[in-house]
């Protein structure tokens, strides 16, 4: 049985303008639209395509968070995942703890691949895939823009600062998805209905033997300093004058 595990994080939707709460304690989430982290959606799409190409048998979506994350898992099931697991917690956990929780699931399910988004667009940490690979003592291929699966290896093209790097990794492994890996499918209404019948297992976090103590503390949340709107010029000649005045050309 070749399984692929995909992590889905519930985050504030990509299109929402995020606001700091008036008490300075985190950001406003009341009444705000929540979605699957876009990079995770890309990761799921890739896993589904691998399964559709008969290179895997089962896609399992996993989320760690509050009971509300069931919504995102149901969306994942509607996209085509076979079953879902929610590790339920109301605490905000650090990436290392999240990675250890994922590792518990990995140990139980023994997947061929774990697919995650390269980062979540809320905390922008970009850590869990790499940490999970370290705990699992397996290869990591981060920032993937193309994945080719062979029998017991995968070739991955990675988007790095200097261009496109191709690496070969032994399986099992962790792959994290970058933006250009694919374009996720839209969910169709009948699939949403079908998804309601698919299995969704809820595990209480305390049933797993992972310590939940955070080691850092967020002291303050604030809006960054905004750049001020500048001047408007009318043509290229005026622009050049301004640039010269600033000593920039």
């Amino acid at each position, binding site marked *: 049985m070749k399984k692929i595990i995909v992590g889905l994080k519930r985050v504030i939707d990509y299109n929402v303008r995020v606001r700091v709460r008036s008490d300075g304690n985190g950001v406003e989430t009341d009444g705000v639209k929540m979605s699957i982290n876009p990079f995770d959606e890309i990761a799921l799409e890739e896993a589904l395509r691998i399964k559709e190409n008969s290179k895997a048998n089962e896609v399992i979506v996993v989320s760690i968070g509050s009971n509300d994350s069931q919504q995102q898992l149901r969306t994942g099931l509607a996209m085509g995942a076979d079953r879902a697991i929610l590790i339920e917690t109301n605490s905000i956990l650090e990436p290392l703890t999240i990675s250890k929780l994922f590792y518990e699931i990995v140990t139980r399910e023994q997947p061929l691949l774990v697919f995650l988004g390269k980062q979540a667009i809320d905390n922008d940490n970009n850590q869990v895939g790499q940490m999970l690979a370290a705990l699992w003592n397996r290869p990591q291929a981060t920032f993937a823009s193309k994945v080719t699966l062979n029998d017991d290896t995968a070739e991955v093209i990675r988007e790095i600062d200097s261009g496109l790097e191709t690496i070969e990794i032994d399986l099992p492994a962790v792959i994290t998805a970058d933006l250009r890996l694919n374009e996720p499918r839209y969910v169709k209404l009948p699939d949403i209905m079908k998804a309601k019948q698919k299995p969704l297992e809820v595990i209480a976090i305390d049933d797993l033997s992972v310590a939940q103590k955070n080691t850092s503390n967020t002291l303050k949340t604030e809006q960054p300093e905004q750049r001020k709107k500048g001047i408007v010029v009318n043509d290229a000649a005026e622009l*050049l004058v301004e640039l010269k005045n600033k000593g920039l050309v």
Partner: protein
Amino acid sequence: MNKILIIAEHDGQKLNDSTFKCVSCANKIENSEIDIVVLCGGDSRLAETASKIDNVNTVIEIENEANNHQIAAVIAPQIQSIADDYTHIFGPSTTFGKDLMPRIAACLDVNQISDIMEVIEPFKFKRPIYAGNVIITIEASQSKKVIATIRTASFSTAEQRNQAPIKKITVEAKLPTHTRFKSIQSGKTDRPDLQTAKKVVSGGRALGSSENFKIIYDLADTLNAGAGASRAAVDAGYVPNEMQVGQTGKIIAPDLYIAIGISGAIQHLTGIKDAGTIVAINKDEDAPIFEVADIGLVGDLFKIVPELQEALNSD
């Protein structure tokens, strides 16, 4: 006493500017001693360059064929074997550091702080979240090591007037072979490196084709500037991915940034918010780029850019 280890980023030939910026960040931590570790395949000039960076105490050089390509799973156990002495371990928040540092953190069973943009105290930092729309102040436990990536655009390039000793060591750690480098494809360019260029000219989807990007390259060359692009232009296939500026591309801080035909999605603005002067040329006067531009020019880029080019040429 804080002991800081910085992991050098390089391509086998040259030390990346990000390493110098990590040193600048480390310099903000009071009562500290800074070491740099260079993991390389066999070229000692890298360690020599690192030893010249101001305030560096010792450069540790680990030569091993396995380090010919900088693979996170190979580097992490080597760092783990020398980590004991240090209170802080820093890497840049480039794709190299983002790939590597969490692997090291997990090997050491500590958390990581990503994208440090300001040091407040040795264990207290500021970092951006939500694509830079929110800044948090985070305090790390003093009983654990601080493993962090450094947001390079927030720090200056450290000077090179030093002569630190170089200590060559060998590491006994067993290195994995499960991850193998195959090849790298990068657009060769003589233009200044996007991440360190003093000036950058970027084009967006409005350019319409890769051929049309020529006017961006020409302007960049005249200004001795790096050339960049928005995500939309990269997605459309006009330019390669390494030119992308923004949250998922490169975060840069040039003195002059000229955005041409870029509307200014929030993810793009994240990548340029530390630029000195932002110039925007766009035909849509309501484009969000004008909200942050120091100098805005509304109009047709295919008319304005050649005019600007001509004016510069005749100067």
